[in-house]
């Protein structure tokens, strides 16, 4: 099996999907000739032509709005938003249109659409190239929000998103693109959207997280192991839908839950997960639920000490987990 970076896994999946289904088109800012600012779509225009991999005008509402129309008229568009931070001009199209079209037409219309966007910080991107925007969309019924944490998952989840009949937001962590590597099978496979994955089994505490943080949590778990603390790690893989069953299972198993996300604390998906556990597993808990999340400041600052203070690291996870284990 080939070892690939997170980025390569996404690119090869796009290639495989484009080869498989001629209805798939990719477009966005700089995705064609240049192959995207992160090179995710590199070489795809050359292979598939300008009709299927094209540079669009710099206009996010138009990118998503046209993708909706194209999906209704028989294509399977995979538009790219260059940075998740710039998705807001399109929020009208995503929330008011894509998410509501099936519902408002009583099932007559559907919008099979995958919106890819790099997100997240720790890459000196400052306020407008570091944001975690997933929870704005996780709030909206009609959308699905997928955030892979490994190259293997990146492939299976992207293929599943393409196969999905409803709009899926597929967020890729920028810091994961080249730093994460792993084995990725050649053949096509689907990972069902809404199924979490137990990335590590443990008995003392549960760490529930997603995306890049999964890797930080795995590192933290190794450090904790040396201290005699056994941590279980649940990778959500999608935050809408949430895998409620697996969340409750791990909470009941260890009785101690730490929820980790880079997105800021207040209104983050951690609040929803806490509420689910409180509603359905309160008496299985041995400690209050803990959340480790980005601070409640408007976005990630630029200068290294400020950026570091914002970011979640494996050390911060280790510390919070140790604290919780002692409770």
């Amino acid at each position, binding site marked *: 099996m080939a070892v690939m970076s997170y980025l390569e896994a996404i690119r090869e999946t796009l290639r495989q999907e484009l080869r498989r289904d001629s*209805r798939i*088109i990719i477009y966005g800012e700089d995705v064609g000739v240049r192959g995207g600012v992160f090179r995710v779509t590199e070489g795809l225009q050359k292979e598939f032509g300008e*009709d*299927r991999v*094209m540079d*669009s*005008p710099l*206009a996010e*509402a*138009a990118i*998503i*709005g*046209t*993708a*909706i*129309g*194209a*999906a*209704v*008229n*028989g*294509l399977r*568009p995979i538009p790219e938003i260059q940075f998740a931070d710039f998705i807001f*001009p399109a929020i*009208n*199209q995503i929330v*008011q*249109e894509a998410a*509501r*079209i*099936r*519902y*408002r*037409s*009583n*099932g*007559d*219309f*559907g919008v099979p659409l995958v919106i890819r966007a790099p997100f997240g910080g720790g890459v000196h991107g400052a306020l407008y190239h570091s944001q975690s925007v997933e929870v704005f969309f996780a709030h909206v*019924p*009609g959308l*699905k929000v997928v955030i892979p944490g490994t190259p293997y998952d990146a492939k299976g989840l992207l293929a599943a998103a393409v196969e*999905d*009949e*409803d709009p899926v937001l597929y967020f890729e962590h920028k810091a994961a693109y080249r730093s994460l590597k792993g084995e990725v099978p050649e053949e096509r496979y689907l990972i069902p959207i809404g199924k979490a994955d137990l990335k590590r089994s443990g008995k003392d505490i549960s760490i529930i997280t997603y995306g890049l943080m999964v890797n930080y949590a795995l590192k933290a778990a190794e450090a904790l192991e040396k201290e005699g603390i056994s941590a279980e790690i649940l990778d959500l893989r999608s935050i809408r839908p949430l895998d409620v069953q697996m969340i409750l299972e791990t909470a009941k198993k260890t009785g101690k839950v730490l929820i980790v996300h880079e997105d800021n604390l207040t209104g983050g998906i951690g609040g929803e997960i806490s509420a689910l556990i409180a509603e359905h597993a309160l008496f299985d808990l041995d400690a209050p639920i803990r959340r480790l999340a980005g601070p409640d400041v408007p976005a990630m600052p630029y200068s290294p000490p400020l950026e570091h203070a914002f970011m979640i690291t494996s050390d911060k996870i280790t510390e919070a987990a140790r604290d919780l284990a002692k409770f």
Partner: protein
Amino acid sequence: MAKAKLTPELLKEIYYYMALSRAVDDRMWILNRQGRAPVVYSSNGHEATQVGAVMALNRGEDWIVPYYRDLAMVIAYGETPREIMLHLLGRAADPNSGGRQMPAHWGLKRRHIMTTGSVVATQDVHAAGLALASKVLKDGRVSLASFGEGSTSQGEFHEALNFASVHKLPVIFLNENNGYAISVPARKQMAIMDVAARAQGYGIPGVIVDGNDPIKVYEVTQEAAERARRGEGPTLIEAKTYRFVPHSSDDDDRAYRSREEVAEWKKRDPVMTFEKRLIDEKVMTEDELKAMQQRIKNEVNDATDFAEKAPLPDPNTLGRYVYAE
């Protein structure tokens, strides 16, 4: 599609849809004033623009992406009076939305009427996207988006024109300029006289047409459709027209426009003038006209009765169709 001729049959059909939608429209207001229909959005005054335009399309094959003003347009595109009334009254069998959307929020896939929401100008980019698919799939379809002049202040209108002209998409942007966005007059909406002038900024033709003359609208739309099918890209059509009634049943237009102004425009009522023309030019006899009007009356009565007797949606369906089932 070969250029359709303006045969007497086609002229009669255009008149039929205009008169039918006016009659449905009038009935909707009566139902509203009687407390039987909570809200009404009207195409009253816009019939020539809407019917003239879509009769120039390959109906049921080309896509239309209408807005709430387009009752006459969707009737000419194949929604029946019964379907319209089911929608107005929020009945379960409403084919546009199963009673989920407010009246005048059209959408019917089998007739290629795109589903529409309330947020103005969102539909403009959808039309460009439908046309993008047509270009890639080479399905020969044209898409037509319609919208009021007020909504042309929105970014999505401009994004749609730009995207479609850069990629030479087979799409027609039809502006129904009635001079007002609810109460706000066009001169407070834009610092130019004509919406059509916007076309120049996108390198596409901008055509002004008398929106109260269905034949003129038909002709310019036909030309725009041919241009689109030849792969030459979009056209912006501005049909100058007027709405004779308030913005909706919740509006009172006396607050912002004079009765004299309304009366002046009513002299050019598109349904009346076209009717007179068909008689004067002997396309139709008085007897034929009367028979058609009687048929329309019967259809509207039937539709009203049918919809009023139709069941309302089952509350247990509230959670359906959030995702594919």
